[in-house]
């Protein structure tokens, strides 16, 4: 009952006209980012963080969350119409989605994907509501040693985000930690790696680094004279699936919700793993499995439901434990920290009102996306016709404004340019960027909690093993870290994940 009251309180905050506007704008921008091939959700969320810095914390996070799950919806449109996934988790949808387009059923495919996404996202949010209270109560038991142990589990996710090479992932992770250490040391107060530059005394701005590494480096990777795709949007009447298509999609959506929700709870699993496994589930259990690959509705409804269920379920470890389960969520966590909110057990005790407003906004955002996506599919496809030079110029304006407004200083624009070049170099060396963002976000929290813990215990390291919660968490973290380190490479199943 208490949970329901808090959720209703959250709805009251989320439904103010300002927060509704932020949710709407977030859904709109997220869909656009998802539609644009080449601008992934990590870069998209990173790019738009600066625009939300001047908003109040609730409005800012509501907008960023809406951008995050909006990208999942938008990515479907190009998968279905162009055979090109807007983002990694929609890649598997290209198989049956594009086949449906060639059969003249593009409208039905897009509608079923949107409805599936709505169902998956909404059910996962219900799960978040159910999990929030019991896990949030853990906040009362968390001191610096437990917090450090949580951060160890978070950092251990580097293993899952490593891409093709653990060695390169560790380099990326070490770079992220080193960047986060620039500035005044949080405990002793001594300047570290500032090179005598006053602007670096407060550290390198997280936002400028992220915008540079993910956003600018993406722009720098664009190729001259890339052709603008030719796309034909389905008409309004073509958007309605037939009764048979609805009937066949329902079980696929149910299975997709289960797969996406379950995997979303496991830190390190990305949305593309969920959609892939959902497709595999359809191959195994669907009555129409022999039609998969030839334009079966199950091949669209299942994976699309799974990736949205995953996106919302992945917020559960962030909200309740402070563990970012994917690169995009790590960027989102950075935005929380910029707003003075520390995701994790203490979020529900220290900022309960904001936390519940954000959760309530997830329900609202899912409804908004359903309303936006289906009728406006023609508008979204027209975005694909924007020529690359115009698109690049518009994105660059956002980047410059975003970087400048962090501290109202041109210095941050230079920081963004520098990290854009670093990001480009890392991409060309095949060094994954995801571990860097993970350590950049978690590194300072981890260092501070380690040093606070050791100060409390007067340098005695047994403080981490003598407290049951921290001992268990550290054990889990070390297990995750050590297993692939022994081979210095990653398990094959996760290696090919493009989101990593």
């Amino acid at each position, binding site marked *: 009952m208490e949970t329901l009251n808090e959720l209703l309180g959250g709805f009251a905050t989320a439904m103010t006209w300002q927060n509704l506007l932020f949710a709407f704008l977030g859904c709109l921008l997220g869909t656009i980012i998802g539609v644009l091939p080449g601008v992934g959700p990590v870069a998209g969320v990173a790019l738009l963080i600066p625009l939300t810095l001047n908003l109040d914390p609730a409005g800012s996070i509501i907008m960023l969350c809406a951008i995050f799950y909006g990208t999942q919806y938008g990515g479907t449109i190009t998968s279905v119409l162009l055979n090109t996934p807007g983002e990694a988790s929609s890649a598997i949808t290209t198989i049956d989605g594009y086949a449906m387009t060639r059969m003249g059923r593009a409208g039905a495919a897009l509608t079923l994907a949107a409805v599936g996404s709505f169902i998956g996202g909404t059910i996962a949010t219900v799960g978040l509501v159910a999990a929030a209270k019991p896990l949030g109560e853990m906040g009362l038991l968390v001191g610096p040693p437990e917090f450090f142990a949580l951060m160890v589990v978070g950092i251990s996710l580097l293993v899952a985000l490593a891409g093709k090479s653990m060695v390169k992932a560790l*380099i990326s992770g070490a770079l992220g930690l080193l960047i986060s250490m620039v500035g005044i040391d949080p405990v*002793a107060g001594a300047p570290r790696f500032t090179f005598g530059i006053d602007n670096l005394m407060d550290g390198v701005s997280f936002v400028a680094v992220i915008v540079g590494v993910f956003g600018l480096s993406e722009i720098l990777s664009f190729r001259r004279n890339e052709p603008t795709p030719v796309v034909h949007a389905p008409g309004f009447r073509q958007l309605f699936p037939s009764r048979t298509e609805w009937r066949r999609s329902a079980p696929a959506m149910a299975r997709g919700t289960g797969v996406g929700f379950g995997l979303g709870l496991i830190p390190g699993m990305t949305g593309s793993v969920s959609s892939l496994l959902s497709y595999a589930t359809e191959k195994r259990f669907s009555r129409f499995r022999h039609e998969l690959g030839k334009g079966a509705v199950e091949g669209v409804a299942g994976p699309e439901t799974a990736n949205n269920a995953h996106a919302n379920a992945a917020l559960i470890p962030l909200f309740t434990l402070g563990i970012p389960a994917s690169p995009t969520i790590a960027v989102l966590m950075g935005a929380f920290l910029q707003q003075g909110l520390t995701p994790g057990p203490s979020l529900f005790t220290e900022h309960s009102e904001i936390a519940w407003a954000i959760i309530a906004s997830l329900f609202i955002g899912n409804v908004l996306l359903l309303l936006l996506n289906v009728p406006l599919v023609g508008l979204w496809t027209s975005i694909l016709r924007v020529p690359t030079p115009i698109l690049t110029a518009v994105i660059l304006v956002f980047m410059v404004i975003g970087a*400048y407004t962090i501290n109202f200083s*041109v210095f941050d624009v230079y920081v963004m340019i520098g990290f854009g070049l670093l990001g480009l170099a890392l991409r060309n060396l095949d060094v994954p960027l995801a571990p860097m963002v993970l350590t950049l976000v978690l590194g300072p929290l981890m260092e501070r909690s380690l040093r606070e813990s050791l100060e409390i215990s007067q340098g005695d390291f047994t403080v981490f093993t003598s407290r049951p919660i921290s001992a268990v968490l550290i054990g889990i973290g070390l297990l995750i870290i050590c297993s692939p380190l022994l081979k210095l490479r990653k398990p094959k199943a996760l290696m090919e994940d493009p989101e990593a």
Partner: protein
Amino acid sequence: MTTESVTIKAGSTIRVAPGVLAGIGAFAAVGIYVLVSSVSLGLWTSLGPGAGLFPFAMGALLVAMSAIWLLQELRRPSARGKGVDKGVVISVVASLVILASVMDLLGFQLSMFAFLLYHLKIRGRRAWVPSLIIALAGSVGAFYAFNYGLNVALPVSAFAPLNLIGL
């Protein structure tokens, strides 16, 4: 958009790409610099870890991983990826640096207008009318939207004559 490199089979006669060697060298150099600097920051104090302990560990990790990467490359070099479009990189980075260096002097509107016109008309070869419309919207339009709509102050010109006419 990432540039994927293709791994070559062991025993191939292809040598390690110079770019990869340069990258490994750069990471190792950063690691060594961090290792040396963090010692002076203090690794341990009477209260526990010093300001240099975490950077020291990261520096050591960078050096060690660079060495392992080098060994892996010598054993099985990775082929060159698609590379970058140098024209795009130079034009975008140079224009951004120029924009950043003149923004406080000329103000956001004028410098962004020139920046956008360069990217749309000169680099992008778009027609004059759409280029001018987008450049105006992205400079003057964005300035007013941010200044008065979102209450976010973008820089105005340091030159009094330009400042007086609202630029």
